[in-house]
């Protein structure tokens, strides 16, 4: 077949020169990291549950991609799920399913939980952080 880039290789700084070219893959993993799969599933599920329409979702995602392009960020597909996540956070806020301060607070609570949990123990939020 043709010359191929592994999906992950494009995210490495030494491969930034490849950005001008069309990234190629040959059916590699669809998700580079677990969080991408989870962000994907959240959008699909929230839409399926009727919290927003798929059209609203597509518009939010297109808005994030356009914003990145307007800022001159290289758009080679490798940051696709970063934009996906940003679109999800924005739509969740717009639809009042959650709000930015709650998301930030919860994110920090998770980081704290990781830092204070010894190896081999499951990560859990303290009771106060989940209230």
């Amino acid at each position, binding site marked *: 077949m043709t010359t191929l880039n592994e999906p992950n290789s494009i995210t490495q700084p030494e491969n930034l020169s490849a950005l001008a070219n069309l990234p190629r*893959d040959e059916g590699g993993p669809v998700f580079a990291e677990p969080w991408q799969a989870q962000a994907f599933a959240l959008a699909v599920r929230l839409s399926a549950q009727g919290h927003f329409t798929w059209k609203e979702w597509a518009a939010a995602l297109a808005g994030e991609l356009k914003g990145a392009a307007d800022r001159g960020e290289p758009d080679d597909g490798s940051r696709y799920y970063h934009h996906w996540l940003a679109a999800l956070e924005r739509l969740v806020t717009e639809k009042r399913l959650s709000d930015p301060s709650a998301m930030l607070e919860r994110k920090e609570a998770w980081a704290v939980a990781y830092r204070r949990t010894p190896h081999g123990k499951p990560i859990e939020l303290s009771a106060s952080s989940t209230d």
Partner: protein
Amino acid sequence: MTTTRRDFLTAAVTAAGAAVTPDLAHAHEHDHAHDHDHQVVPSDPALRVKALESLLVEKGLVDRAALDAIVDAYEYKIGPRNGARVVARAWVDPAYKQRLLTNGAAAIAELGYSGPEGEQMMVVQNTPKVHNLVVCTLCSCYPWPVLGLPPVWYKSAPYRSRAVIDPRGLLREFGLHLPDDVELRVWDSTADLRYLVLPERPAGSEGLNEEELAAWVSRDSMIGTAKVVKPAEGVPA
């Protein structure tokens, strides 16, 4: 037994500092995680997803089992093989082909494939004189139920822009040289309407049954960046 994505992540996090799955190793913030007595803090986007998910699950807006099922389906079950079966059926069954070209989503649902990004499907047929190419210039709309999730290049800006500005040049980069007398039609997907290319049945495929034909149909041939060719000897389809 399938390990769910969540189990996998938990196991990998728990194992941080010991034998880490190579796939996740590069995501670590620093190289010497084993020098610390706490667990490795995930990357910023990973924490944001975790935050979002835990908030929404607590409110009862989504449930974890449904999320895991979606991840599992798209990662392991739904892929271009669904589309290949649709194409092979159309090649052997003229009545099915007619239904497929008339009402894509309904004909595709006959084979059991449906879901998000597949509600409205238009199937466009390649002929000796017409070649079809699919793109989504705005984002990455893609017919998930038949092709799975899009490849990296489909989501990239170069593909999205060049498919419109210089589609013949783009196809040459994919190794597809279209003669000048072949009309090239570029279809721009939207949130409402997705496209699937019905490629030409290639020479040399006479006498094959539907299942054998499906093995010849590549993902790229259904996006329009390739034609269907006889698989090379010894190369698994």
